[in-house]
């Protein structure tokens, strides 16, 4: 698999580190159901056969955090975004 880093260009998988599911969002710890929400946030993951959004780090490159949307069956990559841009958009309510 080759990932097109938005900063460095397309590089091999050997330069990247997988850092988990990019769809989970840290719940509000002051909410009433915080305990249940945190159990889900920390432990429970979907395991979709198909399109998935993942966090990757360009660890042996520019060290940026990226959100890669790909099909886990074919490794076909749909998009690569800066994780910072994704988080900023989410915080502003634009959502995913």
């Amino acid at each position: 698999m080759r990932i097109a880093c938005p900063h460095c260009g397309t590089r091999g998988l050997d330069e990247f580190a997988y850092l988990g599911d990019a769809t989970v969002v840290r719940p509000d710890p002051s909410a009433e159901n915080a305990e249940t929400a945190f159990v889900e946030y920390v432990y429970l993951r979907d395991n979709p056969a198909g399109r998935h959004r993942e966090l990757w780090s360009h660890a042996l490159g520019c060290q940026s955090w990226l959100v890669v949307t790909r099909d886990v069956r074919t490794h076909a990559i749909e998009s690569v975004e800066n994780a910072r841009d994704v988080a900023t958009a989410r915080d502003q309510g634009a959502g995913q």
Partner: protein
Amino acid sequence: MPEPLVARSALRAHVAPVVTASVEPGVTLRERSGLTLATVSALGGRDAELADAVRSAFGLELPTTPKRVAAGEAAFVWAGPGKWLATSTGAADFASLPAGVSDQSDGRTVLSVSGPLARETLATLIAVDLHPRAFAAGDVALTHAASIAVHLWRVDDEAAFELAVFRSYAATLWRWLVHAGAARNIDARLDG
């Protein structure tokens, strides 16, 4: 009496010189010694202020893509979004820039790889395309050479490259390069 601190090459204690006798070397490996190095990181939201300061102090446009810019003694090498490696062959004052500046003069080793077979030698260790069509003078890549993180740039249109590497990896990378250059008449020497 305390022992005075002296800057020492990361390589001298570890590598023996390899000099090919009586043939034109295909690739030449040297250490760029005596460089002033510093990492420069833009402070949150102050990228423009840093760019202005670099422009007025060094007459350079800070690159925002993987490029290296140089003028006189000083150069700035892109090192990721909002990050640069500043280098100088003199005693440039990078600390006064409005940014997070960390001196790396003793933290990194810079190797110079040049000669007609320099690209071929590096290609045995590095997966990035270094053909001049894809990697021209001033182009920069952050990648790995034999799994050692390297910061690589092409100095000019001739086959001349430089690699910055963490000091503790310098001797291992040197040995990899000597090994890769063994069949290409490498001339690897520490000056002095």
